[in-house]
Structure formats: C-alpha cells, structure tokens
C-alpha cells in the first residue's frame, strides 16, 4: 500500500464513525490545547521577565565586584536550606561585604580581551522624590546609568540623557499618575526634587540630608521598574559621594567596589566573566540571572503541562478503545482486504495510520484553538490589567511549540494504536470472512 493511499484510507475511515471519532479527537484536542496554551503562556511571561532583567542587566554587560562571593546566587548563597558556604579568598570580610577594588584590579579588568567600557556601579539610596512646588513625596530608586544602557529603555516621551548630561533625568512611567500628569509630554521640562539622607542614618547615626534638583527630559514606557529615575553617571557619583559621606569615592583614592563592564558583543559576556573570575573577583552576567529564571519557569511549566499530559494520557486510552471497536466492526472488511492481497503488515500499518490521524488532527486542532485562546487572552489582558505593558505578549507560540505538540500527540496516538493494530493484523482471514 502506498503512502498516499495509506493517508487517504486512514482519513476516510475516520469519517465513517463521525461521532465516535470526533469525541476521541476531542479528547486529544483538550490535552494538546492545554499543553500548548500553558507552555505558550509560560514562554510569554518568561520572555517578559527576561526583557525586564535585560533592561537592568544588559546581555553585553558583566558586573564585577571585589568580593568573589557577593554575586553567588542559589540556596546556599542565600543561607537557606543549602550547605553553609565557604568564604573564598583570604581577605577580611564576609560573603556579602564589599571593599573598593584596587587600581590594579581595575586595570586588569580593563585589559581583558573584548572589554569595551568600564564604569563604576554607583550605589546610592535616595529618600524620596517630589515634584517642584509640591509637598507630596514618593519612594524612588535612583539608577545612575551609562549612556548605552539608558538607550535600551523605550521612552514614551522626551529624549535620552548622555554621559555628559547634568541635572536631567528620565522618570518611570508610573510617576506620571502620582505627579498628576495626564500625558507624558506634560511632564517634560518639569523639575523634581530628589532628597538624599546619608547612609549613616540607616543604622541610626547622625546624618545630613540634601536635596538635588533634576529636570524631567524623558518618560519611560511602563516596565516593572515602577520607581526608577534614571540619571547620568556623573550626577549619580555626586549623590553617591554625599550619601556615603566619602568625597573621594569613585576616584583613584577610593575606586568603586563594583564595576559595570561592557563587552563588545553579548556572546563574549560569559567568556569575560570567567576571566574575571580567574582574577579572583566576583562576577555576574544576565545569562546567570536568566538561567535562574529559566530553571524556575521550566519547573512551573512542567507542573502545568502535567495536567495537559494527564489529559493526553486519558485521550490515548480513548484512542485504544476507539480502534479496538473499529477492529471488531471491520473484522469482515479486514478479511476481505487480506483475501485480496493485504499482508499482516499492511493491516497493521493501516490501523496505526488511523491512530496517527486521530493524534495528528487532535494535536493540530488543539494547537489552533490554544493559539486563538492565547490571542484572545493577550488582547483581553492588554485591554485591561496589562494596559500599560503594550509590548508584553502574554501568549507566545514559537514554531517549535506548534510542531512539537502535534508531533507529541501523533506519537502518543501511534503508541496507543499499536495494540489494536496488532490485533487486526493477527485476525484469521477465513474466520474474519465468516464473521457476522
């Protein structure tokens, strides 16, 4: 029997018992739809979170710290359930304390291949931000960023700041509402006052407070960083020196404890990171963080997909049932086919093909329905609770998910049809021809 004939026969036989076969296919559709929808939502949310991570830690950036332990992530590093971690190096201090990097260390990092730009990572905590002329103060996170990183954020209004910028800032979209602006354009050119109290206050020591004035020149699109205010590195350093009460911070006398190292291509980030590690320094890249997110999502998706897989397992029983019924009903037909020249192998492959057709149709319809549902969920959520995250695709269907789910249901169906096909092939032709 030729392959086109096999397909033709398999699909035309499905049409013979429409209701029964439709119900069996429906069972596959439910399983395939569940698996593909849940995985697609997982991919969408993970993609969104990954984008957020990349906006904070770009993929071509390696963070470098004086302490090799400080970026250790994991259960042990968090002191939670893991083995107590050994403190690396011979320096004083623990796993989370930092000391300024030495000039020599900074030079070594600068000298590494593929390192393009080295900036201090500015540490700073601001008390509040308020609009000039208003007494309402709001929480804020000041993000001093180099120019290349600033440009990775999408703006809904205004312009980017450069490394030379002084006294200008970009505010997070969420501030528009609390500041009482009705449009992003309205915020441009307005002054905000950022208040900084020295770090000593964190442990109850006497400390000074200072106010810095910035002009809003840009507004970001809505991201998860809802309280960020982006300033230039120069402005950040100035505020940080006051906050730390250390006028020589970020100079050759007291260099930064953390560096933000940009490499000339994200593919080199991990390579540079491992060289940094060899220098005895701490390092972290976006792929480390994304790896952790990926692991967590992998587990969540596996758990969610299990429900779909259970449905597919039940569907496979239904396929077995359907095909066994079909073998009974068509016993005489099988006898005739054998009498006119069908071998056992042909009969076996014919019933296997019918099972495969059920799996294929169920998978294809299931994925198609999940695709439409995903699209609807996407639209509905963006029209409602995700209104401000227009770039967030909550349901994403890469080609491999579509192909993979259809292949999965087809394979499951083929496995389910092995026994009925074996039974059909083994029927005695003479008895089958007598079967009433």
């Amino acid at each position: 029997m030729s392959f086109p004939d096999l397909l033709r026969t398999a699909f035309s036989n499905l049409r013979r018992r429409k209701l029964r076969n439709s119900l069996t296919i429906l069972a596959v559709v439910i399983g395939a739809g569940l698996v593909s929808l849940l995985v697609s939502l997982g991919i969408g949310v993970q993609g969104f979170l990954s984008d957020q991570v990349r906006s904070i830690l770009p993929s071509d950036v390696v963070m470098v710290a004086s302490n090799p332990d400080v970026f250790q992530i994991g259960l042990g590093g968090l002191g939670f359930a893991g083995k107590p971690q050994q403190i690396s190096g011979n320096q004083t201090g623990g796993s989370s304390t930092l000391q300024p990097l030495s000039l020599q260390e900074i030079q070594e990092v600068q000298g590494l291949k593929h390192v393009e730009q080295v900036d201090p990572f500015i540490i700073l905590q601001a008390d509040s931000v308020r609009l000039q002329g208003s007494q309402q103060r709001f929480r804020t996170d000041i993000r001093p960023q180099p120019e290349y990183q600033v440009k990775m954020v999408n703006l809904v209004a205004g312009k980017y700041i450069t490394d030379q910028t002084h006294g200008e800032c970009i505010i997070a979209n969420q501030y528009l509402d609390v500041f009482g602006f009705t449009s992003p354009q309205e915020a441009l050119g307005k002054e905000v006052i950022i208040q900084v109290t020295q770090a000593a206050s964190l442990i109850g020591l006497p400390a000074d407070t200072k106010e810095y004035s910035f002009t809003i020149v840009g507004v970001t699109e809505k991201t998860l960083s809802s309280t960020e205010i982006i300033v230039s590195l120069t402005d950040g350093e100035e505020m940080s020196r006051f906050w730390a009460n250390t006028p020589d911070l970020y100079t050759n006398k007291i260099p930064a404890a953390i560096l933000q190292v940009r490499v000339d291509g994200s593919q080199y980030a991990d390579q540079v990171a491992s060289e940094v590690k060899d220098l005895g320094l701490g390092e972290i890249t976006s792929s480390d963080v994304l790896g952790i997110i990926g692991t967590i999502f992998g587990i969540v998706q596996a758990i969610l997909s299990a429900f779909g897989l259970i449905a597919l397992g039940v569907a496979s029983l239904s396929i077995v049932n359907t095909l066994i019924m079909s073998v009974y009903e068509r016993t005489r037909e099988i006898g005739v086919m054998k009498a006119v020249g069908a071998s056992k192998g042909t009969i076996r492959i014919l019933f296997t093909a019918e099972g495969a057709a059920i799996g294929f149709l169920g998978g294809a319809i299931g994925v198609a329905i999940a695709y439409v549902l995903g699209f609807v969920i996407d639209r509905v959520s963006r029209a409602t609770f995700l209104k401000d995250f227009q770039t967030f695709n909550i349901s994403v269907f890469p080609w491999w998910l579509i192909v993979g789910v259809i292949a999965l249901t087809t394979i499951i169906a083929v496995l389910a049809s092995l026994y009925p096909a074996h039974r059909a092939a083994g029927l005695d032709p003479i008895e089958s021809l007598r079967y009433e």
Partner: protein
Amino acid sequence: MGEETINALAGINLEIGQGEFVSIVGPSGSGKSTLLNIIGGLDSPTKGNIIVDGQDLSKASDSELSSYRNKKIGFVFQTFNLQPTYNALENVALPLVFARVPFGKRSQIAKEALETVGLGDRVRHKPSELSGGERQRVGIARALVNNPKILLADEPTGNLDSKARERIMELLAELNKERGLTLLLVTHDLESAKSADRMLHMRDGQITESAERK
C-alpha cells in the same frame, strides 16, 4: 472434554491444469471450502505441500502469500463481501490498492473489469443500490481486476435466485473459456457443477470421486 484434532483435509492428492474448470461438490463440512482456502493461500496445510504455478505455498511467508493472493488468485464469495461504504468502482479497485497501482490508473482498470462483467453503467452505485446478481458481478470484477491465473468461487450463486444464478454461471464459464482462467467452483448445485470439465466429490476431507465431463 479435551481438544480434538479434526482433519479437514486428509490424503488429498490433486493436480489441476491451467485453464481447467473444476467443480467441487459434497456435503457441508466435507472440506470443500478448506481445500479452496488452501489453494487460495488463506489457509496453510499442517502437513503436505501445495504448489501453485511452481510456488510452494506451504513454505511461503505472510507477505509472499498476500502477494500471491493479490496477483494470482481471485476470490468470489457467496456473500459477495463488498464494502458497503464504497461504490462498485472502489470495491473493484481494492486489490489494486494493495498491488500499489497508482491512484489515477486504478479507476481505469477497475472500470474495464466492471465492463467485462457487464456493469459499465453501474460504476458509481453502492452495493445497496444493486441487485444480488449485480453485486456478485462486482465481486467477480474485483476478483478479475489484477488479472489472476486462478478464480476461486465458493458457492458464488448460493445467495441468488435461479435467473441470476444462470447468468453468473454463464459469466464464469465464459471467463474460463475466453480468458483461459483456471476456475475452481465449490457448489451445492449439481446443475452448475456438471458444467465443469471435471467434478470432484468430497466427503470427510477426502476426494471420493472424480468425474470428467464426457
């Protein structure tokens, strides 16, 4: 009660020449159908050899036997065994599917076979839309479609009225004469049996009498 071995056939020694018309008569359970099924490659003897056209069927594999049934044998059944969901053409074309004849060529060959049996104008009819005699003609066309050497007919007229019976017998005799097809006919009907070149009587799995036509 234990299982009992019943010899459906025992000590049969039979040679049939090409183009011969042999009829087999005998009471129910005498082994007529078993003999036909063994010659047709649907059943295998537990002992002994069966050689058709130089091929020893008792040693053939399943795929060799199915190819043999497909190419060399045409079965005609008492109950026609037509597929009710297929029309006449599709029923006749079924052996061609397993012979891997391309789709386009199949309907042409099947149509010719239907014309041979006088049903050229019934190709699109389903079995339920045909009379008993016409259904058996479709069955015969299906048996002919792969140009077999041997036609095995097991009570082909058992379900037909006398008029249809006559015409089916005429058709079979004609195919035997004009196409040189070897024809083996199992029947209860002595009238039909007598039209054969040779008539075999069977009883308890043995051939008890063999009569040549004068």
